[in-house]
């Protein structure tokens, strides 16, 4: 028998190892078969009620209904839906041949199971006036309501109400595996930074052409800009506006600026003794130099806004309002003087020996808020109002609202969280003087009645009429002071084609993307 020499054995072993490694490298995600996405947000959990926005954007999860770019509901896992004449029964007919990532077929029972679990967790579905969610045959789901609720469709389109396979849940309804129905399935879940998804061949809709997609959290804006410049990331969201000129010079990148329904607003405690008169709130609003903040602090000229909702949400946007409209009420000085405020020797306002002092809280999750807060501090000081800025956690706003300690808060409010802005308007203005992220100690019975009416108004003309009236009341009474609208800055590498931006930030539309052939 011929014995193989030692060095040949070594060589053979080495080639097997190299071959195996090469095979592994070829079969897994590489830069040539993966579209890489970078953004600022982290994720810690598989549960859609907590981090569903990440999985919905990466197209792992889908909902019964989808939202198009205009904010209108369109079919998704439900191919059609009907509302009964009394507006209390919604019937959803499910799409056929929809497979979960675990290989099982989606049916009405699985959908009901998912929705009942979502209803038991934190989210908008919990607050909806639902009597029951039941199956009607194998491919229909019926939701019965205790009262008409036009928002239901938009609520079902929220990421927290994504449909998962029954096998995705553990014994305590916790999500143990993310078996959704999207064009991509989870390949690697490494919280809090990295998520890799792989294309799902049995997807019911447009199948992905790019085999893998990865999401990496880039905490620092500088780091994300470098990822875009170096080509490590194909799509980078949340670019710092200051970096845009240098990125524009690169012919490997295309830049997209898209307005999103998120607004920087000041929440005022309208029950505070200094702020309970609308003239005081108007004076503070007039003293804010929105144009200056948009141009010099945020570096997005034109993003200044007088209204809390963006122009894209036309039902709620007042066309006749200009920066001059509010100025007709007077100047900040004249309005405050009419309330008995007088400037002291230091140029600060006083009334009955009491200085006009406010505490403004904000949070550092969005770095621009702290700089905007200090700009507002300086602008209010110019009219004699002394402001103490406290940078804390976002939850301090909800807490301050509940315990009544909040005076003023600066925040970035997402009005597209539920595709129909009525959802956020109801939670911000609908109950008892306001909501955690909305008005505080501000009551307007006409406004409250209008919001309640909208909950069951399906006639679009009537809906717009009431919404416009509500928007006018908010503008006139200033329980919140809008400062600036958000613009999402995104860079896309030229090796990718088919990118489109979702203003409701529900999807990255990865399945529509392709690599440009060299």
């Amino acid at each position, binding site marked *: 028998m011929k014995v193989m020499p030692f060095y040949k054995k070594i060589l053979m072993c080495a080639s097997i190892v190299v071959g195996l490694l090469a095979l592994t490298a070829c079969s897994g995600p590489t830069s040539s078969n993966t579209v890489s996405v*970078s953004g600022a*947000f*982290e994720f*810690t*959990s598989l*549960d859609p*009620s*907590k*981090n569903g*926005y990440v999985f919905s954007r990466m197209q792992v999860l889908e909902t019964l209904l989808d939202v198009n770019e205009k904010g209108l509901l369109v079919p998704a896992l439900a191919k059609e839906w009907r509302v009964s004449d009394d507006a209390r029964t919604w019937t959803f007919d499910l799409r056929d041949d929809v497979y979960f990532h675990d290989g099982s077929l989606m049916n009405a029972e699985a959908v009901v199971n998912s929705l009942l679990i979502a209803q038991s967790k*934190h*989210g908008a579905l*919990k*607050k909806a006036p639902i009597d029951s969610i039941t199956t009607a045959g194998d491919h229909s789901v019926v939701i019965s309501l205790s009262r008409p609720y036009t928002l239901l469709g938009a609520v079902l389109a929220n990421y*927290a109400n994504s449909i998962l396979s029954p096998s995705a849940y553990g014994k305590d309804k*916790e999500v143990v595996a993310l078996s959704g129905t999207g064009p991509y399935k989870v390949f690697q879940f*490494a*919280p*809090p*930074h*990295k998520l890799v998804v792989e294309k799902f061949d049995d997807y019911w809709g447009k199948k992905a052409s790019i085999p893998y997609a990865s999401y*990496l*959290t*880039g*905490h*620092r804006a*500088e*780091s994300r800009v*470098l*990822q875009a*410049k*170096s*080509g*490590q*990331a194909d799509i980078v969201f949340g670019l710092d506006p200051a970096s845009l000129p240098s990125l524009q010079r690169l012919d490997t990148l295309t830049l997209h600026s898209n307005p999103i329904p998120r607004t920087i607003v000041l929440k005022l405690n309208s029950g505070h003794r200094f702020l309970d008169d609308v003239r005081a709130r108007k004076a503070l609003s007039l003293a804010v130099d929105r144009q200056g903040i948009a141009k010099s602090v945020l570096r997005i000229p034109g993003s200044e806004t007088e209204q809390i909702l963006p122009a894209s949400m036309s039902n709620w946007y007042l066309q006749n309002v200009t920066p001059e409209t509010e100025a007709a009420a007077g100047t900040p000085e004249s309005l405050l003087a009419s309330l008995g405020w007088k400037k002291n020797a230091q140029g600060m306002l006083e009334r009955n020996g009491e200085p006009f002092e406010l505490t403004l809280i904000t*949070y550092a*999750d*969005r770095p621009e808020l702290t700089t905007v807060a200090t700009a507002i501090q300086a602008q209010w000081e110019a009219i004699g109002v002394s402001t103490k800025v406290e940078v*804390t*956690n*976002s*939850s*301090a706003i*909800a*807490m301050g*609202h*509940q315990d009544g300690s909040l005076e003023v808060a600066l925040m*970035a409010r*997402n009005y597209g*969280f539920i595709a129909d802005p009525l959802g956020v308007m109801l*939670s911000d203005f609908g109950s008892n003087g306001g*909501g*955690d*992220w909305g008005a505080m100690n501000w009551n307007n019975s006409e406004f409250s009645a209008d919001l309640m009416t909208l909950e069951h108004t399906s006639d679009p003309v009537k809906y717009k009429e009431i919404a416009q009236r509500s928007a006018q009341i908010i503008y006139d009474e200033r329980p919140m002071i809008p400062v600036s609208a958000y613009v999402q800055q995104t860079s896309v590498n030229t090796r990718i084609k088919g990118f489109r931006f979702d203003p409701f930030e529900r999807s990255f539309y990865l399945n529509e993307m392709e690599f440009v052939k060299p």
Partner: protein
Amino acid sequence: MKAMLLRRVLQLITVVWGVGTLTFILMRSLPGDMAYRIAASRYGQDNVNSEAAALVRAELQLDQSPWVAYWHWLTDLLQFKLGDSLVSGLPVMDSVQHMLGHSLLLALSGLLLSVLIAVPLGLLSAWRGNPLDSVFMGLSSVIRAMPVFVVGVLLLLLFALNWRLFPVAGFGTPAHLVLPAFTLAISLAAVSNRVVRDSAKQTFQAAFYRFSRVKGLSEWQTFRQHGVRNIAVPVVAFFGIQLVSMIEGIVMIESLFSWPGIGHGLAHAIFARDIPVIQGSALVMGILFVLLNTLVDMICLWIDPRGVKA
């Protein structure tokens, strides 16, 4: 040696109890409502409200008295259970393993590279003296004065952006480790080369060192037989201490390079009031501190056996 090891085991038990208890007290004394903080981290800034906080409070029984909570933690600890994260619901052990594994990898690579940079440069400075010494000392002062973040960005600009040799951020392949490890190494070497240089200078000027040259040993023989061990003792002790402070102090590097280390994880856990994660991380780091100190002491004893008598 046995006595030292026994002492260290006792120290370990005290550290485990002390760190856990202290973390518990400090976290409970922080202002703000825990339920709101946890809800903000769980559901995100857009979805945190008083209902979410109430849900968290009920689910995690945050209304129970601190004594009951402390007792639960202590009894779990005695059964070697670290509990689940209040934010993600995942076992603390898994998160700590994931984060600490990455931190250790980064810290050890950084430390190794810093040894490779600092030792030759420090020895060269001490051996050749001025003007080289002044140049190296000036350079290390400049690097030390720069925030580690700036060093990282400079390396990124050169190696990731200009020459496209390494990725900007992320983890999972050896290439991802290079730039964060070098950033850490350069920043560490700027201090440790001074320790090496001072220790070497002291040894080179010592009477016993000069005497060995007088008695006829070559420069290399003198260095090998009388220099290495004497220089090594303070240097090894310094590197050991650096390693521990490094594991918790590399938050900036972890943030810049999206590296999922314990420094970054701990900072987020503190913002979120995720007490089990904070306790678990602090506990493991405390244990690591004692173990590394023991290891350093053992190496020092091996290098310089005179310590045994002391």
